[in-house]
């Protein structure tokens, strides 16, 4: 056992692990996350890699806590460096302070300046020697033992994780790894953490899930049974999870030749009566806009989950940004009312996708669901996500309806849709402007009526309390959306803790945004900061366009790839006082 005494307990601890290609950084992170989950904690794990397709350096960034964790912290408590190769590439992603602890191997060479410059404490351990002494030993397993011990996890809990994960690789590897873990635990450490996690009394049932898996699950919960898609980073894992899962629940996934095909394929699937979805990222979404316009005009419900990455153009495919809001809101030619929702965190990916599918079905329109790389490709230990409101489902036409009119002007703007197979319901869906029957028309009255219908039906949407998550009160409001919400809420909590109260409003239903509810939530507010991770302040300007912001509202819009951190928001708000 080591000689360090932990003096304080705290709600979260942040741990980064870095190493060159093949050093097993990601495996280590995943095992650590599983182990802390088993021990009753929550946690978040983000990943970062160099440009190499394989064999390049990589980093995992974990934040572990006794309560749910929705964002990375301002700084890391621990950096575990399996080696120093190209570590500088990650320096900006792993902010350190003087009180951070850097664990490294003195035999790995000198600590690079980009890391050393913070003057953090260091714990030197002969990782390589220790692993070399074990037949089949690996540095990362030693490191895992070291980290687990420092975090105060019981050795058995980590051993169970390793055992389960490596079992398929054979007994020898398992045994070698067990030995490494134990050595990591037992090795002498001349420094430790200044804090440990608050123990958890009776752990709740929790999930360990990635944002992209969570989105996939939301789709199936919402009723999606057909998916056509073209792979793209960072959305592909949604598809990888959905392909086998859909098959189990009687649905299917079709790999399309491109995004033009995938969007039109799901329009076909949905026309056939099967709730349909595709997943993509910015470049793919760009290619889908024509098809999405067809879905809006033909009133065929479809859902696109867009996992945002750095833009514009090919941009930064492996890193996160919230810069596809504009295209999601406004990227159509012509006036094309539709739905846009944004997932606030990994857990919310399930809820918001589920809800988005249901809304698209009820309103027979397009729903674009925005997630991003920082959620999609990160894993989190979460409470099981809630179910979305049931909504009304797709309104279908009964067989042999008299004088069936597909685009009938009903009171609520939603017209019964005849599903192929329904006798007497045959009609032709059209992207040309049409009359109530669906016959193409260029008359101004038909155009006006159908435009009114497609816009008007969305006013029937009941935003419930789910349109946004709001917390706190006071004269300062922080408005945000998507993955910036975690940092915004944390900033809100910290302000509160510092005696300065603030309300944080994280908008989930981005379009149609319920203006009255927003205005009500802002009542009594003096100053507003709109927080988002992009260059142009897309959400800020959208709120302006809706006339929801007072003149003195400000924006904190900062592009990716670095996540918005709570401290950044704090710093900005503190300029006000």
């Amino acid at each position, binding site marked *: 056992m080591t000689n360090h005494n932990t003096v304080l307990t705290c709600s979260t601890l942040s741990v980064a692990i870095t190493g060159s290609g093949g050093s097993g950084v990601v495996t280590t992170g995943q095992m650590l996350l*599983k182990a802390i*989950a*088993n021990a009753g904690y929550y946690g978040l794990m983000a990943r970062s890699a160099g440009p190499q397709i394989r064999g390049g350096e990589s980093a995992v960034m974990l934040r572990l806590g006794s309560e749910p964790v929705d964002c990375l912290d301002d700084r890391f408590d621990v950096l575990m460096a399996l080696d120093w190769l190209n570590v500088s590439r990650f320096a900006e992603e792993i902010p350190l302070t003087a009180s951070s602890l850097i664990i490294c191997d003195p035999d790995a060479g000198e600590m690079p300046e980009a890391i050393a410059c913070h003057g953090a404490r260091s714990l030197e351990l002969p990782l390589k020697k220790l692993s070399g002494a074990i037949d089949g030993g690996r540095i990362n397993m030693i490191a895992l033992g070291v980290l687990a011990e420092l975090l105060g996890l019981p050795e058995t809990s980590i051993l169970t994780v390793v055992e389960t994960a490596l079992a398929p690789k054979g007994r020898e590897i398992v045994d070698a790894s067990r030995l490494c873990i134990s050595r990591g635990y037992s090795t002498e450490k001349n420094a430790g953490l200044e804090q440990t996690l608050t123990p958890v009394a009776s752990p709740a049932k*929790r*999930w*360990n*899930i990635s944002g992209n*898996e969570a989105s996939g*699950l939301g789709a*199936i*919960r919402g009723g999606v*049974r*057909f998916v*056509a898609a073209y792979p793209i980073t960072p959305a592909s894992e949604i598809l990888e999870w959905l392909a086998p*899962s859909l*098959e*189990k*629940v*009687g649905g*299917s996934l079709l790999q*399309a*030749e*491109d995004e*033009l*095909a*995938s969007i*039109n*394929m*799901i*329009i*076909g*699937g*949905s*026309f*056939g*009566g*099967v709730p*349909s979805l595709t997943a993509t990222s910015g470049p793919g979404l760009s290619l889908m806009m*024509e*098809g999405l*316009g*067809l879905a809006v005009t*033909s009133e065929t419900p479809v859902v696109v989950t867009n996992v945002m990455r750095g833009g514009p153009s090919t941009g930064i495919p492996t890193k996160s940004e919230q810069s596809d809001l504009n295209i999601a809101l406004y990227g159509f030619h012509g006036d094309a009312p539709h739905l846009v929702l944004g997932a606030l965190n990994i857990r919310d990916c399930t809820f918001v996708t589920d809800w988005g599918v249901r809304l698209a079905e009820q309103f027979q329109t397009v729903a674009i669901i925005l997630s991003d790389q920082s959620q999609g490709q990160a894993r989190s230990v979460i409470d*099981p996500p809630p179910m979305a409101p049931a909504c009304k489902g797709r309104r279908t036409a009964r067989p042999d309806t008299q004088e069936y009119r597909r685009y009938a002007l009903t009171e609520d703007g939603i017209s019964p849709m*005849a599903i*192929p*197979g*329904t*006798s007497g*319901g*045959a*009609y*032709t*869906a*059209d*992207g*040309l402007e049409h009359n109530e029957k*669906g*016959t*193409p028309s260029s008359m101004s009255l038909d155009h006006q009526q159908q435009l009114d219908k497609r816009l008007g039906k969305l006013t029937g949407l009941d935003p419930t309390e789910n349109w946004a998550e709001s917390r706190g009160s006071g004269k300062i409001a922080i408005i945000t959306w998507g993955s910036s919400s975690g940092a915004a809420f944390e900033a809100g909590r910290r302000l509160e803790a510092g005696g300065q109260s603030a309300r944080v409003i994280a908008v989930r239903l981005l379009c149609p945004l319920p203006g009255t509810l927003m205005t009500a939530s802002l009542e009594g507010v003096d100053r507003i900061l709109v927080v988002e991770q992009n260059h142009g302040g897309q959400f800020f300007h959208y709120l302006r366009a809706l006339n929801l912001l007072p003149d003195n509202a400000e924006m904190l819009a900062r592009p990716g790839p670095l996540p918005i951190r709570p401290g950044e928001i704090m710093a900005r708000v503190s300029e006000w006082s």
Partner: protein
Amino acid sequence: MHGNTPITGLKPKDYKTGIKPVWCPGCGDFSVLSAVTKALAHLALPHQNVAMISGIGCSSRLPAYTSVYGFHGVHGRALALASGLKAARPDLTVLVAGGDGDGFSIGGNHFLHACRRNMDMTYIVMDNEVYGMTKGQASPTTAPDWTQSKLTPHGPGVPQFIPAAIALVSGATFIARGFTGNPNGLTKLLVEAIEHPGFSFVQALSPCPTYRPEHKAWKKQVRPVEEEATSDPIIAAQRIQTDDGMSTGVLYQTTVPVWQPEQGISADTGQLEEVFFV
């Protein structure tokens, strides 16, 4: 093949909506409409189990004129939309209709991949060697020396796209060519195409009197294929390559498994969620 109990007594006109086509007088597409409705009547397919999908173009207006389910989508994407429909609803008879521009210019990629995928559907291209709807530009099947479009005043200058050849090397399992001047022959081809289990492609030579009046001459140029349809792709390739594009009939037919999603349910959502529990 399609599992629909034939309803006797259905006439071709029962498959027409009665909406007046936008087509010019004398357009070949009238004849395709008539052949399609005759084929549907012959097969006695129940209206509700048939879907007719198209893109944009004069020819792509077809769905509105047939009284089955229809989707008039966007330019070039008919095959994609139809493939999604068929994947989600394998029980439906899916027909796809369009023009040479829609199918081979903007839609060329979906043509390649729909042929490869060999889903059980029928694709009818009304080939008039021109973009009719946009008032007469060269399409991929236009001859290189056709100079009547202002966009290509010296002619497109590019060899003609040979739909049957591309379909063959891409993997289509039924390839036929018909002519609107012979509506009964076309009807027969459509019936065979619809009955064929897999991706069937019918090129219907369908003159555009407005922008290609010279195609009146097709009447004299077309002739039935000399040989029986082959199922040997090498022989078919040779025939198609040496042909002048004017022989009509089934050019190639073979049977290989169609692409179809797996069927059956083995879990509910709750069971899918189990893997996520810590």
